[in-house]
């Protein structure tokens, strides 16, 4: 009678996982919006959000400064952090599964370096296109990331027509180094933009508004839906490409779809927030350790966990030495690494 119980429990634990992560996500959004130099009560935040979504609901009872802070400053920032974290995590999970490499992350293929080059070029030359103005940077960054991924895939295909994952990783690493050198070159040559460039490279979601959210959301939706559709193929491919082929996966086509979907997510995330490290590497591992490697659950759970994690990391980064802000990438590593180490040790100890 033990088996049915375990079975039930494991199914339950997946359901529990979704419930817990959704609750944490909601709580993270509220806390992130609430805390700051001026703290806003949860209830007011909920009221403000409802009034903005359903026109006609009155919020006359709430201070207009609160509305301004919540709606124009904090909420977009929190949501942006959430979407960036979610994008990087789901992309990381997919890349790790596809490349069968636990060390892979969204930046392995050089997409982030491409996006960074786009951004740094914008800052370095002080570019500003007409009509879009301050959005020149995310736009150029996203374009650069897409160019990079296609060039990387083109080269990988030229080197090895079957596009083995080893070839893809190698090509990505080569391009990353090359593009990284370009960035270093610009940093070396720059003067007063140095701080701006470094700040962008370390990653941040501060001083962003709804427009940035609007940039990332379509890419996030397209990318994550594409990946979720390929969850089964990712499962199959983590047994090796030949094995996936034996099972009936059209490996080459599906692999290309997954690579492009993951790159769209990464490129968009980097374009709006810079290269925030650690999230895409660790969140998928964290979810895998707790709920197993099955991509059907791993992908959505990573999305939820990654979003919440980055919202909370951002909260810490802007409150810990307030009124100054720390780069969010520093916080993700500072919080994430020890938590991850503990979980890893625990799971290894249980196994042995």
């Amino acid at each position, binding site marked *: 009678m033990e088996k049915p119980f375990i079975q039930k429990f494991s199914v339950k634990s997946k359901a529990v996982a979704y419930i817990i992560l959704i609750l944490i996500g909601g709580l993270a959004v509220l806390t992130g919006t609430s805390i700051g130099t001026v703290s806003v009560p949860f209830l007011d935040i909920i009221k403000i959000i409802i009034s903005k979504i359903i026109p006609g609901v009155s919020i006359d009872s709430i201070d207009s400064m609160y509305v301004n802070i919540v709606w124009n400053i904090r909420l977009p920032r929190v949501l942006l952090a959430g979407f960036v974290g979610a994008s990087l995590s789901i992309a990381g999970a997919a890349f790790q599964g596809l490349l069968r*490499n636990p060390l892979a992350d969204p930046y392995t293929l050089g997409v982030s370096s491409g996006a960074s080059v786009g951004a740094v070029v914008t800052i370095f030359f002080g570019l500003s296109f007409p009509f879009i103005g301050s959005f020149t940077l995310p736009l150029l960054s996203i374009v650069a990331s897409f160019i990079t991924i296609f060039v990387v895939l083109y080269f990988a295909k030229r080197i090895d027509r079957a596009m083995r994952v080893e070839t893809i990783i190698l090509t990505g690493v080569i391009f990353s180094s090359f593009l990284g050198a370009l960035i270093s070159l610009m940093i070396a040559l720059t003067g007063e933009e140095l701080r701006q460039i470094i700040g962008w490279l370390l990653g941040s979601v501060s001083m962003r508004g709804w427009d940035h959210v609007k940039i990332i959301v379509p890419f996030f939706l397209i990318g994550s839906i594409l990946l979720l559709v390929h969850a089964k193929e990712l*499962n199959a491919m983590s047994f090796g490409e030949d094995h996936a082929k034996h099972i009936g996966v059209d490996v080459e086509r599906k692999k290309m779809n997954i690579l492009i979907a993951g790159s769209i997510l990464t490129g968009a995330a980097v374009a709006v927030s810079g290269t925030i490290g650690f999230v895409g590497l660790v969140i998928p591992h964290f979810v895998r350790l707790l709920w197993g490697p099955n991509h059907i659950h791993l992908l959505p759970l990573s999305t939820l966990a990654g979003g919440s994690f980055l919202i909370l990391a951002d909260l810490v980064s802007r409150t810990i030495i307030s009124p100054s802000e720390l780069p969010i990438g520093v916080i993700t590593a500072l919080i994430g690494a020890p938590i991850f180490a503990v979980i890893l040790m625990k799971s290894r100890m249980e196994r042995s």
Partner: protein
Amino acid sequence: MIDVKKITGGYSSKPILESISFEVDKGELFGVIGPNGSGKSTLLKMISHILPFQKGEITIKGKSIRTYNAKEFARLVAVLPQTTTQTFSYTVRETVSLGRYAHQKGLFQSLTESDEAIIQDVMKQTGVDIYENETIDELSGGERQRVFLAQALAQDPEVLLLDEPTNHLDLAYQKELLDVLRSWTKEKDLTVISIFHDLNLAGLYCDRLLLLQDGKTEICDSPNKVIKKERIEEVYHASIEEYPHPKVAKPQMMLVPKTVNKDEKTQIDETLLRFTNEKITLEAKQSLRTMSSGVTGSGFGWNHLFVNRYVDKNYNVDDHKQEMEAYLKSHGFHPDDTVGMMTAVNLSQVAYQFIHEEGFSGLFVVTAGVGNAVDSTLGVSRVPGYIPGTINIWVFINGELSEEAYIQAVMTATEAKVKALQNFKVTDPESNTLATGTSTDSILIAATQAGAKLTYAGSATPLGQMIGKGVFKCTKQALMNYFNKEVKS
């Protein structure tokens, strides 16, 4: 079912396979054998559509494998690879479920009830259902292999391709897996192509075998025709012996290890014999190839201890074999390497002789009594008893005997024994006709299997003549001793 036509190809410009052609019928268990690097795995990869081939064509069910799409192909052909990588630890159930991938439709494919039923079914068949919720990296190599077999079967294929399926399995699971595969080929018309390293297993289970050498077909035929000593020795560059399976009409191969310390082999002669009132023993330094009808060590075998034990004429035990083993053990002999015989004849009446011939030699030891003399040609049954009246003949040959020679040696020795009995006009006491032996006679032919090759031991050959002469002389002497004692007492 599967038609491979003049396949040529490989990994680079230099082809690994050259013009391989064969056909496999529906429901056939087809084995591919060959030394390392002969192209077995390459061939399997080409059939499983992983590796392209430069020339030729492979068709399955009359359609070129190039025209199938990935899912169609997976519904038709499943593969059990030799090794599988697993980066992440999926549960057994998740792993097996993946086998249904090719049967699922729609974007967010979920498992239907019939999928679930098949998954449960194949997990039961492969015996992995008990690990259902464990992760595959917690399993042993053999268990994992069975999980992947279950996954392949979940594809519900018509063709199953296996690359050394018994690689990680212990003896019991090897047999079980192959038994199951064969029953599926017969009952479900599953077509199986499998690579084998173990020629004996391949020979036992396959309907036909393809032997590859350097990417070319050496032969493709039934196991009895493929597994021939000379061919296998040539292809594998190893010294082997062919031997029939004791239960199944299939050939088996035995490796012959390089012998070291040849000088350890000593000649068997009378100096090795030890006599007491209780037993005559001969202890050889090396094991001898023996064929005997002793109480222990009977049949063909390898033994280095030889005991002819005196038992009282009233000796009567229900299980004399067991009693003999106990006796041997209590005297420091291991029954597994001892040819043991019994006699109620006084052991001092033994006769023995060492005969030296050109290139080989023989030692003959005989104890004889005729209390139970029987004329077997009458065809009347007698109650065998261990009363004095047993002729035990030991023949030791310093030479290498073929199996044929062993049988001929027994014939020749028996003829000589009968002649010796006739010499003394020994008769069957019940019929008063000339006796052919006693009811409990035993014989041992033992050879060192070193030195001169002696293929025949018929009465016209030098070996046969030595055996005839030796057995006759010793039996005659032993009978003489027996009669002298009988007369005296």
